[in-house]
């Protein structure tokens, strides 16, 4: 009975490990990308923010958005 329980636990762990990284990949995740965080969850509200645009004009979500919302792209850099 105990060995059956152990087997079941091992199987559950194995399938969890498989699920955790079941995505096929082209290459291993680079070190610079580990501990990925993706911010507000789907269904959650974004934090209020203000930032200047390329013309130095201050912008907020409300001055940026269209009638149905905003596509907001976070990029690493426009320099390098």
């Amino acid at each position, binding site marked *: 009975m105990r060995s059956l329980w152990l087997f079941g636990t091992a199987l559950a762990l194995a399938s969890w490990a498989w699920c955790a990284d079941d995505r*096929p*990949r*082209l*290459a291993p*995740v*680079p*070190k*610079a*990308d*580990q*501990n*990925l*965080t*993706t*911010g*507000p*969850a*789907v*269904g*959650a*509200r*974004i*934090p*209020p*923010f203000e*930032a*200047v*645009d*390329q*013309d*130095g004009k201050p*912008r907020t*979500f409300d001055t*940026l*958005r*269209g*009638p*149905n*919302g*905003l*596509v*907001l*792209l*976070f*990029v*690493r*850099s*426009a*320099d*390098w």
Partner: protein
Amino acid sequence: MELQQQAEGFRNEGMAVASLSYDSAAILKDFAERKKIAYPMLSDPESKVIKAFGILNTNIEPGTMAYGVPFPGMYIINAHGVVKAKYFEDDHRERYTAADVLTREFGGDGAAKTTVETPHLKLTYSASDAGMMPGARTALILDLELTKGMHVYAPGVQGDYIAIDWKMAESKGWLAHPAVYPPSKTMHLKAIHETVPVYEGRVRLLRDLTIGQQAALGPLLGPDRSLTVEGTFRYQACDAKECYPPKTIPLQWTFHIDPLDSQRAPAALQHKAQ
């Protein structure tokens, strides 16, 4: 840059577009002028917004030039400021294209369509992008239009029925993600008292394709940096009277692969290690 090309598609859906990075407004101004970008590019030089969103890349040492960058990604935010969807890759060299997101979120049409007709169906296939950089993640689109009275079987069908099957060739130069099949209808076959999952009428299948890095792509690129990606679509069609022999339709997409952009801002504006 690619977002600029898709900005109109998003605007047609009532969505404005903007980007944000840790660059100075001067760097962004220079970039926007060079690349002819009209949408707002937000400057967050102290990474305040990036930190407020909780997406600061914590792998980078403070004091180095790259400190302050976010994990790159895209949010689709509704008019009330609520996240409707988000697209992040766990490898920064890989990115969802804006056209992929547009297709997935709003059902946009693909570029460069190919149509194949058989007595049972019309198959039109395309991709959300025609040209991409290495690491881009694009949407492959298969639109089926079944001839009136015809049906095909959905994945998961039991017994001897042959479900539709979309296969992609494997390669070191790309990665085909699993196909997304829409919900099927249930058909009751009276004569044999069986219910089976089927598709009729119009059906759209989607699957993402991630383009590999330059080193893996090099040997696969044709003249003019073209990349050919192949697959097959197999189905068995039936009508009320009979089932027809299974058919396999070859699929072929050709993409233009742009080299990675390595041009920096003018030296005076560039990021420096602090």
